[in-house]
């Protein structure tokens, strides 16, 4: 028996084209008989960021492209900030179900969220994270 060739079931290939309008075109809105502008294309996804505004190396922006990141003094941390106040692995930043969370990794000097000592917290855009002398602003991206 000849094995079934999946290609034999395939439709003839057609050239594909990405629909990326470079300028808005008018489209008829049949519900009201007027013309409306089409929806603008969705803005590109931006990763979240940590903006370091205080501490060694500031100002500096760290772009977070991973779902699980360790910040600390050690060279084994994903984001290394060479500051004596930081523990080797000081804080974890992770994404769970699309929500960003920070967590203290049992650090010596603790994690402060908007000035409040926290073990962990969900983050929203503009939150201030303090790790010893280091001050970071969380930017949520989109």
């Amino acid at each position, binding site marked *: 028996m000849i094995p079934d060739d999946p290609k034999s079931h395939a439709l003839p290939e057609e050239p594909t084209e990405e629909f990326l309008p470079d300028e808005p075109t008018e489209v008829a809105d049949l519900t009201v008989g007027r013309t409306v502008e089409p929806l603008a294309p969705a803005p590109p996804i931006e990763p979240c960021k940590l903006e370091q505004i205080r501490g060694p190396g500031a100002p500096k922006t760290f772009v977070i492209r991973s779902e699980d990141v360790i910040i600390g003094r050690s060279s084994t941390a994903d984001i290394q900030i060479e500051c004596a106040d930081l523990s080797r692995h000081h804080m974890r930043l992770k994404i769970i179900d699309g929500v960003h969370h920070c967590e203290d990794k049992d650090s010596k000097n603790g994690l402060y969220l908007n000035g409040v000592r*926290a073990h962990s917290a969900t983050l929203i855009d503009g939150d201030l994270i303090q790790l010893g002398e280091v001050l970071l602003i969380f930017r949520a991206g989109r």
Partner: protein
Amino acid sequence: MRIFVKFWGVRGSIPTPGPSTRRYGGNTSCYEIRIGDILIICDAGTGIRPLGLDLLKRSPNAIEGHMFLSHAHWDHIQGFPFFLPAYEESTKLFVYGLSTGDDRPHDLLSGQMQTDYFPVSFRDLGGQVIPSYLENFQGQIGDIKVRALEQIHPGASHAYSFEHDERRVVYMTDNEIDQALPEIKEDDELRPVPPQMVDFVQGADLLIADGQYTEDEYLKKVGWGHARATTVTDLAIAGNVKRLAITHHDPMQSDQEVDAKIAVCRERVKKLGANVEVFGAREGLEIRIG
């Protein structure tokens, strides 16, 4: 042993989702206290729904929890029918009354699942929801000492203290302390808060307390069952509390308005020469004690 406290719902009265409450959150009262393997849940407002989802994700074994309700007004029980662990056969949930035979908290949870209010019957929950009791407002869960205190609230409400290894968390919501003051005025002196409440919070590592109103808001809502944030601050000062989480934020308060309310309380602590750390309870925030 360390105590972990997580805020799952910090809004008073009614859920308030939306951009103006995004930072502090819009879910109604629910707090998780973990001491070793023991899970304590204070109140079952809408915050209990995300707590339930999180418990299912992080618990490899059957979920066992001890639930204490401050009282049964909507914002403290309305999330329970959406607490998914209660639908799991392996779940055991102990719901505490204040003394032997006090099934009221259990009955109120089940009562809100009658057909008139909710499509799924309490009997259809797969898990065990077990009436349990303190003895005359006191009890023990493992090594954790539990105490309760009657508060000032229409229809009554209760505060709870959880103590382990000389560390203590007090949950005190829906308590109109101002009603016990000889007069309501703005002042720069420590207000004469009731001594039994001071005793109850004395030396707590964390006091989670209802400070729903600003001074102006309270004057329009006297007798509604909630305190001025500044009066709760005075209670924390009088009781030498280490950290005060002001909660049960008014549904009309935006994030900026909660910030302003907390700033007034911090200023008051300074003026009165005290050193209680005051902060606004925020959804998703977890505190470690010890």
